[in-house]
């Protein structure tokens, strides 16, 4: 815990006002980071030993009465120091851009594609921000709270699985 507090203190010193909120979730520290600072904070956290990006999740707080509708959650882990840290970034509905973390962790590639597929976040700088779970002809984003959960959409081709047959 002391190690983690030292890391967080350094972030606070370097990026003033970047940490909007600090919370505890089942013993893990959860930081809410300003969107404009998120990439710089991630760079410094990786340098501080967080060598593993476990997952990137999205949250749609449509009916929760929050200021911003969406939220992106980064789950970080340090293999060498056995530390866990969770970062939350608030994302407004009318401007869903945020920087990609693919330049830091390879695992961000598919995680960001999933978050894009399900919620529609635009990760700027991602090498291939295509849908990963739903098929290419899917319209909308399935995990948004205003998407009708039982509304299926037919796919007409197998291009998702065989891109080489796409023009067949």
């Amino acid at each position, binding site marked *: 815990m002391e190690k983690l507090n030292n890391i967080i203190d350094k972030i606070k010193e370097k990026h003033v006002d970047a940490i909007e909120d600090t919370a505890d979730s089942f013993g893990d520290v959860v930081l809410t980071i300003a969107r404009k600072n998120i990439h710089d904070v991630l760079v410094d956290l990786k340098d501080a030993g967080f060598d593993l990006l476990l997952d990137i999740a999205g949250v749609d707080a449509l009916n929760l009465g929050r200021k911003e509708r969406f939220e992106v959650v980064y789950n970080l882990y340090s293999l060498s120091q056995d530390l866990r840290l969770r970062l939350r970034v608030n994302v407004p509905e009318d401007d869903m851009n945020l920087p990609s973390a693919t330049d830091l962790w390879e695992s961000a590639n598919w995680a960001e594609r999933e978050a894009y597929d399900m919620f529609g976040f635009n990760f700027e700088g991602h090498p291939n921000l295509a849908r990963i*779970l*739903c*098929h290419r002809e*899917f319209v909308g984003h*399935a995990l948004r709270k205003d*998407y*009708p*959960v*039982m*509304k*299926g*959409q*037919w*796919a*007409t*081709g*197998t291009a*998702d*699985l065989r891109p080489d047959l796409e023009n067949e």
Partner: protein
Amino acid sequence: MGVKGIPISKHESGVITTRTDELLRWGRKNSLWPLPFGTACCAIEFMGVVSSPFDISRFGAELVRFSPRQSDLMIVAGTINYKIGPVLKRIYDQMCEPKYVISMGACACSGGFYDNYAAIQGIDQIIPVDVFIPGCPPRPDAILNALVKLQEKIDQEPQRGPRHITREHGKTE
């Protein structure tokens, strides 16, 4: 003397006579070559049916082929979602007539408990199904029972031409 299921008349000279379609039906139903389209846990159950404790070869259907060109019975075992739907249809189309489909388990039959945007609510919306097996997953006995039901169905079928799909694929409701 005779082969079970075929009306045969035996002549003194050693020549047996029967009807061509009867003979074909008899051969067809006792040598179904299954193609497992396994996408989920039902496919694991299907492995149990093929292996010796249940032994699907007692019913002549042990020769599992993984090429649609070589098989005439497609066993759809598992959840079929909208993304894999066109693949299922394509593989079904690649099978040669006569061809049969067994829909195995709740997911393939009706979407199961995946009543959501991702899962197709029953594969009969894409391809024609001969026998549905309920269960999540079905017991091996139920799969063997489905095979016997299909054999009975083949036994009774008239001379058949190519079948048509029940619904044009790719259309939304």
